[in-house]
């Protein structure tokens, strides 16, 4: 039976020769992830199980990012629960604030060279689907799943069918992976890929950078997909040879390819050269418009960061636009490098100075305003252009505030213009 990439990874981890959509399988996990919000309840269940040790201290990842540095006493308690557990269990991938490996989970896990092609990972965070960009299978689960997976290193899956997204052409200047995924979500809707894989294919892929692909897979969940996945190519191999030279040299990764005759429930063809600079208006990521059609929308705040667009390429693109320019007098612009590594690189490259000169505020890596936690919560009636991934009612603050999603070039240009705008207007 011909299989998609996702199906092959699942079959291999279940010890089966083949699987078909709808099959229920039990698969071995390479990694299990939790954060400061989802790990504490999982620790409770873990303790109920009466287990003494996690299945593998090198393969359970515990990342503090949502409310860190702790925004209040409750979040400090949550974080303390996770920290104590991580120390007790000698968890290798638990990082303290400020350390070079530290940052937002979906930024650092690929960038620290933890995930490699062919890996299978679940995480108690819906954007765990990000790592499909490296040709691995990753998906989000709940806290009970996390607890049981921490104990056994195994979980069950229903094998998904797949939608193939066939990419041709290449992106125009300033158009990014963010614009691409917003257009896919706009086309199929927020439940358009419910329970399915989004498998990317076609010669257009080579024009997408690794950071761009990570952005695309990050938002696969916003159209309901179980996972998004890219084939492994030279760009992937070059990336992992940089993030984890040792395991790359030893060949500790596996390249899966979809069979030529694999079945897809739907094929979507996209010519990348036709993707415009795009925004998603409140209150759904599928509510897309051309950025150029929204120029009358005044804004109060801009956020550049998050697990969607807080990577090196994103922060660099923002610096290129802010260089020699000023943030509009009515706007607060918050720049949040997604990891300590990105922060340091931005410092070395002189980007932090550019942001500071432009009148941006620069934050330590954190999820912060993305989920309305801290570091930029909105008041009633305020509007923000944000490079994050969700613009649901009240996501960044008051239920009467508004979030407009965009890629970095539109967000940075909007900060300068004081309204939704594009780089060609600067």
């Amino acid at each position: 039976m011909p299989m998609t990439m996702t199906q092959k990874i699942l079959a291999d981890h279940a010890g089966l020769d083949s699987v078909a959509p709808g099959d229920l399988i039990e698969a071995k996990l390479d990694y299990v992830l939790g954060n400061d919000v989802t790990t504490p309840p999982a620790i409770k269940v873990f303790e109920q199980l009466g287990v003494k040790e996690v299945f593998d201290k090198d393969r359970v990842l515990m990342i503090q990012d949502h409310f860190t540095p702790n925004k209040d006493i409750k979040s400090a308690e949550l974080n303390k629960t996770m920290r104590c557990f991580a120390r007790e269990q000698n968890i290798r991938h638990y990082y303290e604030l400020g350390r070079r490996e530290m940052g937002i989970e979906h930024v650092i896990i690929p960038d620290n060279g933890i995930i490699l092609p062919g890996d299978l990972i679940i995480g108690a965070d819906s954007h765990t689907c990000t790592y499909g960009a490296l040709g691995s299978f990753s998906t989000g689960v709940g806290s009970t799943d996390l607890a049981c997976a921490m104990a056994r290193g195994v979980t069950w899956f229903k094998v998904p069918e797949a939608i193939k997204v066939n990419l041709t052409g290449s992106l125009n200047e300033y158009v990014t992976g963010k614009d691409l995924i917003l257009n896919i979500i706009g086309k199929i809707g927020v439940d358009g890929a419910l329970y399915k894989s989004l498998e990317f294919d076609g010669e257009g892929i080579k024009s997408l950078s690794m950071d761009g692909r990570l952005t695309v897979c990050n938002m696969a969940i916003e159209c309901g997909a179980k996972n998004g996945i890219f084939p492994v190519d030279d760009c992937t191999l070059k990336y992992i040879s940089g993030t984890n030279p040792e395991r790359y040299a030893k060949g500790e990764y596996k390249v899966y390819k979809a069979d030529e005759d694999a079945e897809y429930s739907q094929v979507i063809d996209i010519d990348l050269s036709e993707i415009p600079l795009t925004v998603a208006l409140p209150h759904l990521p599928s509510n897309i418009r051309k950025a150029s059609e929204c120029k009358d929308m005044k804004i109060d705040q801009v956020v550049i960061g998050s697990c969607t667009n807080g990577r090196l390429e994103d922060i660099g693109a923002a610096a290129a636009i802010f260089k020699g320019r000023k943030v509009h007098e009515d706007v607060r612009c918050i720049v949040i490098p997604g990891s300590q590594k990105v922060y340091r690189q931005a410092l070395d490259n002189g980007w932090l100075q550019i942001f500071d000169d432009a009148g941006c505020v620069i934050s330590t890596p954190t999820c912060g305003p993305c989920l309305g936690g801290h570091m930029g919560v909105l008041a009633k009636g305020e509007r923000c252009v944000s490079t994050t991934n969700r613009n649901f009612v009240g996501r960044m603050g008051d239920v009467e505030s508004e979030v407009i999603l965009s890629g970095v070039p539109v967000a940075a240009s909007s900060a300068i213009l004081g309204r939704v705008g594009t780089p060609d207007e600067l």
Partner: protein
Amino acid sequence: MRVSGKVFKYGDNIDTDVIIPARHLTSADPAHLKEHCMEDIDASFKDRVQPGDIMVAGKNFGCGSSREHAPVAIKASGISLVIASDFARIFYRNAINVGLPILECPEAISKINEGDTVEADFDTGVITDVTTGESFNAKAFPEFIKNIMACGGLVGYTGSELKA
């Protein structure tokens, strides 16, 4: 494993807010949740349901939020099985994880009536409407999923696998 009971029948897109309204999420105690299960579309459900009864519904059962409280509330009501055309992804996962038996069987939905007595066999996937005499085939669950359900959910199953 076999179950048998009287049918409570509902339509398509029964969402988690209908199964257990958000205003009752202040406690995750099953005894509290069962008092409010289905109350917004079927106020007398909690008084009429008997241990072992079966819920039958249409498409996309359990859509909406990811709350594990929804399958817990149904299970606590005494429902032994939910048969639907299909389930929303997270509800499907949560139902199995909390040990609420479910079967997908689109053919059976239009043929089974409210109040019928239905039997189901998880080993074979065969569903029999005893009142009308008709039988239907749902896909049987693999061994490990049957074990999860037999252990009352993923926590019990994981505990037993770790001891094995």
